[in-house]
C-alpha cells in the first residue's frame, strides 16, 4: 500500500510538473497574472508530492518491505538502520528519486522565498524547473520505477554493496546531488532571461545565492567522496581522475567560474552573455555527469545497473535540454545589451582570467573524460586516460590561476593598479619564498617541484590574509579604526578570503602527500616489525571478530615512535555473507604530520600476511581545505546583501557597509 502511494504520488507529481511547465509560460505570453501565478503553488505541490514518494520509499526500506523489488535488491533486514536509510539512494532508482526531490526542493524554495523576484521572471524560472522535473519524472516512471512489486515477496533482501555501507558515503550522494541539481537554478534563471530577452545586474544578484549554495554542496559532496575513497578503498589515494570523479569535478569547475562571472555581472553589469552561457554550460555538465554515472557507460562503483534503455533515455534528456538551451542562446543572446567597459588590468579583467583558465582547464578534463568513450565508439579501440594525462594538462592550466588569485581581490574595479597590488603582496611573497626554502632544506629528497607547490599554497593563504589586512587597513590605520573596519567589512569579503585560503590549504595537502608519501609492502609474520616515517609497527597477529552484518579478520599493530607507544591500529578485512562480498578497512592513525595508514592483505603460505603501509604527510589538509571552502561559501551566503528576500530591508545597512569597504 505504501509503495503504491509513493508510485501514485510520483505520477501526480509528473502531472503537476506538466502544469508548472506549461501554464506559467502561456501566462507570461498572454500577460495573464492568474495563469502566471499558477507556477508558485504548482512548484510547492510538486515538492510535496515527490516528498511523499520519497518518504514512501524510505518507509519501505526502514520496514524492510521485500515485496518491493528495489528494497529486496538493495537492502537486508540485518543491516544497521543508517544504511537502510542510505540504501534508499544507494541504487539507481532511489538515487533518481532523490535527484528529483532535490530539484523540487529548489523549485519550491524559489516559489516560497523568491517573493521579491519580478513575477514574470519567477514564473519563467519555475516553468523551466518544471520542464526538467517532467523529463526526469518521466525517466523514473518509464524506465526506473522504484516501486515495482515482487510477488511472492522473498524472505530477506540481497543487501547493499558493502563498500557503500559507510557513514561518509551515506551523505555523499545527497550533497553531490544538491550541487548538481542546484546548478539547475542558474540554468533556469538563464533560460528564463533568454525567454524574456532581458537581463540586468539584479538578475545576477538573484542567481548568485543559488549558485553559491549549489557550489557549497558540490564542494562538500566531492570532498566526502574523496575522503571515503581514501579510507575505504584501501589504496591510500584520494583522487583517481576516474571518469566518474571527473563527472562531478567538471560542474564544480564551471560552477566556480560562474560564481565569479556572476560577481562581475552583479557589480559592473558586464559579461552578461558569457554568464548566461556559463550557467547553461554548468548545468549541462551536471546533466552529463548524471548521464555518465547513471547510464553505465563507465566502469565504476557508481554504475549500479547497465541498462541501455536508460542510457538512451538520459542521452535524450541531455540532447533536449543542452541542445534546446544552446539554440535558445544562439537565437536570443544577441538581443541582450552589452555591458560596461573595463581595462584588462582590473578586477573584471582578473575575473575574466579566472573564468578563462577555469573553463579551459574544465575543457581539458572533459576531453580526457570523453575521449576514450568517443574513440571506442568510432574505432572500437579501448584506452584509458588516467592521472598522467590530467597531471600534464589540468595542472599546468590551473597553476597560473592559483598564482594570480591573490592579485584579483586587490585590483580595483574598472581600472586596477597591478604595481600597487604587487607591493601589497610583498609580505606574502617573501613569506611564501621563505617557506619554499625551508621546505627545500627539510625535504631534500622528493620532486623538485614540491617545494614550489608548498610555496604556492602558502602564497594563497597569505594572499587571503593580505586581502583582509588591506581592506581593514591593518597597520595603516589605528587599531580601533582597523577593528571598526573589520566589523563593518561585508561577510562576502570574509567568505571569499576564506574560500581562497581553503584552496591554499588544499594545495599544500595535495602537494605534500603526493610528493613525500612513503609506501611499504611487506610480508609480515606475527611478531614482525616495520619502520616507516619514524614509526615502528609491531604486528601482533590476526583475530576473527563478528560485526552486525559481517565477519572480519582484524590485524593488530602496536605503533611506537622513538620507543614511546603511540597507538594501536586495527586494519581488517570484512566478509559480508549476505552480499557475498568483502571490504578492506584500513587502520589509520592521524597526527599533525600526516596519516599512518595500514592495510591488511592476503594470508601468505607460511602464516605471514602481506601488509601495505603508507605514510601520507599532510593529507588531512586536502579535506580541511574543502571544509574551509565550504565554510567560506556559507559565510558569504549569510551576507545580508546576498540573502534572498532580504535586499530591500538590508539596504540602508549594506550601504554603510559598502562605503566602509571602499
Amino acid at each position, binding site marked *: 500500500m505504501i509503495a503504491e502511494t509513493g508510485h501514485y504520488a510520483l505520477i501526480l507529481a509528473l502531472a503537476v510538473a506538466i502544469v508548472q511547465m506549461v501554464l506559467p509560460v502561456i501566462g507570461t505570453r498572454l500577460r495573464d497574472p492568474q495563469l502566471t501565478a499558477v507556477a508558485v503553488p504548482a512548484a510547492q505541490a510538486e515538492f510535496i508530492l515527490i516528498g511523499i514518494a520519497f518518504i514512501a520509499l524510505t518507509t519501505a526500506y526502514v520496514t524492510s518491505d521485500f515485496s518491493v*523489488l528495489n528494497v529486496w535488491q538493495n537492502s537486508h533486514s540485518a543491516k544497521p538502520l543508517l544504511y537502510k536509510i542510505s540504501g534508499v539512494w544507494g541504487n539507481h532508482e532511489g538515487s533518481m528519486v532523490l535527484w528529483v526531490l532535490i530539484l523540487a526542493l529548489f523549485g519550491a524554495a524559489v516559489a516560497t522565498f523568491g517573493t521579491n523576484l519580478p513575477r514574470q521572471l519567477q514564473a519563467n524560472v519555475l516553468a523551466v524547473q518544471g520542464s526538467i522535473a517532467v523529463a526526469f519524472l518521466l525517466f523514473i516512471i518509464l524506465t526506473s520505477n522504484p516501486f515495482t512489486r515482487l510477488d511472492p515477496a522473498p524472505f530477506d533482501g540481497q543487501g547493499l554493496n558493502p563498500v557503500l555501507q559507510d557513514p561518509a558515503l551515506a551523505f555523499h550522494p545527497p550533497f553531490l546531488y544538491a550541487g548538481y541539481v542546484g546548478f539547475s537554478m542558474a540554468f533556469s534563471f538563464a533560460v528564463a532571461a533568454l525567454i524574456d530577452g532581458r537581463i540586468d545586474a539584479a538578475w545576477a544578484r538573484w542567481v548568485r545565492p543559488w549558485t553559491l549554495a549549489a557550489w557549497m554542496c558540490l564542494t562538500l559532496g566531492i570532498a566526502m567522496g574523496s575522503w571515503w575513497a581514501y579510507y575505504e578503498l584501501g589504496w591510500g589515494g584520494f583522487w583517481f581522475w576516474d571518469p566518474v570523479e571527473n563527472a562531478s569535478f567538471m560542474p564544480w569547475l564551471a560552477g566556480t567560474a560562474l560564481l565569479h562571472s556572476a560577481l562581475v555581472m552583479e557589480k559592473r553589469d558586464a559579461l552578461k552573455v558569457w554568464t548566461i552561457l556559463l550557467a547553461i554550460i554548468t548545468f549541462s555538465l551536471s546533466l552529463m555527469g548524471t548521464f555518465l554515472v547513471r547510464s553505465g*557507460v563507465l566502469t565504476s562503483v557508481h554504475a549500479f545497473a547497465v541498462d541501455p534503455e536508460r542510457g538512451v533515455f538520459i542521452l535524450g534528456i541531455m540532447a533536449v535540454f543542452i541542445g534546446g538551451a544552446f539554440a535558445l542562446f544562439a537565437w536570443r543572446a544577441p538581443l541582450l545589451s552589452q555591458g560596461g567597459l573595463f581595462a*584588462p588590468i582590473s578586477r573584471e579583467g582578473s575575473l575574466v582570467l579566472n573564468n578563462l583558465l577555469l573553463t579551459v582547464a574544465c575543457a*581539458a578534463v572533459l576531453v580526457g573524460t570523453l575521449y576514450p568513450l568517443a574513440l571506442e565508439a568510432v574505432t572500437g579501440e579501448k584506452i584509458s*586516460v588516467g592521472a598522467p594525462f590530467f597531471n600534464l594538462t589540468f595542472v599546468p*592550466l590551473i597553476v597560473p590561476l592559483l598564482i594570480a588569485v591573490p592579485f584579483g581581490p586587490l585590483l580595483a574595479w574598472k581600472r586596477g593598479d597591478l604595481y600597487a597590488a604587487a607591493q601589497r603582496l610583498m609580505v606574502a611573497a617573501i613569506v611564501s619564498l621563505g617557506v619554499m626554502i625551508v621546505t627545500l632544506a627539510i625535504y631534500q629528497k622528493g620532486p623538485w617541484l614540491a617545494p614550489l607547490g608548498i610555496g604556492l599554497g602558502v602564497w594563497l593563504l597569505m594572499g587571503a590574509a593580505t586581502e583582509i589586512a588591506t581592506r581593514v587597513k591593518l597597520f595603516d590605520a589605528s587599531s580601533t579604526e582597523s577593528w571598526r573596519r573589520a566589523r563593518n567589512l561585508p561577510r562576502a569579503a570574509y567568505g571569499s578570503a576564506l574560500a581562497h585560503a581553503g584552496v591554499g590549504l588544499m594545495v599544500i595537502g595535495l602537494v605534500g602527500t603526493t610528493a613525500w608519501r612513503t609506501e611499504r609492502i611487506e610480508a609480515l609474520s606475527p611478531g614482525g616489525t616495520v619502520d616507516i616515517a619514524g614509526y615502528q609497527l609491531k604486528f601482533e597477529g590476526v583475530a576473527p571478530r563478528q560485526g552486525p552484518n559481517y565477519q572480519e579478520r582484524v590485524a593488530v599493530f602496536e605503533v611506537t615512535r622513538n620507543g614511546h607507544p603511540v597507538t594501536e591500529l586495527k586494519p581488517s578485512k570484512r566478509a559480508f555473507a549476505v552480499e557475498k562480498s568483502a*571490504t578492506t578497512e584500513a587502520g589509520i592513525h592521524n597526527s599533525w604530520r600526516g596519516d599512518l595508514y595500514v592495510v591488511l592483505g592476503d594470508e601468505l603460505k607460511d602464516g605471514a600476511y602481506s601488509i601495505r603501509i603508507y605514510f601520507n604527510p599532510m593529507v588531512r589538509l586536502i579535506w580541511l581545505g574543502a571544509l574551509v571552502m565550504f565554510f567560506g561559501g556559507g559565510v558569504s551566503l549569510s551576507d545580508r546583501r546576498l540573502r534572498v528576500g532580504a535586499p530591500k530591508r538590508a539596504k540602508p545597512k549594506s550601504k554603510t557597509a559598502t562605503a566602509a569597504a571602499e
Partner: protein
Amino acid sequence: MTRKQRRGVLIGTCLAVLGVAVGLVLYAMRDSIVFFYGPSDVAGMEMAPGQRFRLGGLVEEGSVERGTGTTVRFVVTDGAKTLPVTYTGVLPDLFREGQGVITEGILEPDGVFHADNVLAKHDENYMPPEVAAKLKEQGMWREEKDADGPESKVN
C-alpha cells in the same frame, strides 16, 4: 586604451590560453594514454618495449601462486590465449580465480606482464564492460551470470 584594443587584448589572451591548452592536450594524448588489450591482442602484436597497457580477462583457475614474499603470480586468460602476470602488493578484496580482472603495467621481454596496479572490482557479479566485451569476442562469455540475476527472477 580604445575599445578595439581592449577587445584585442581579451581575444589575444583567450587564444593564447586555448593554444597552450590544445598543445598540452595533444602532447599528453601522445604519451599518457593507456590501451586496453586481452591476451589474444597481446599475442598478435608487436609491443614497443616499456609500453604501458591494461590487460584484462579472467584469472585462470588454479593459476594463483603466492610465494613467501608479497609477489603474486597468476595467469590472465580470454579462453584463446593466456598471459602470465606478476604483481607485488595487496590484491583487491574481490580478486578471485575464475573472475574478471584488469591489470595495468608493462610486458617484460621474458613474456611476463609486470602489473603495478590490479583494479579493484566492487561487486561480485560485476564484470568490467571492457572485459565482458573481450570475452564475448573470444566466445568465453557465460550467460549464466545473468540467469540468476535479479532481473530474470522477476520476469
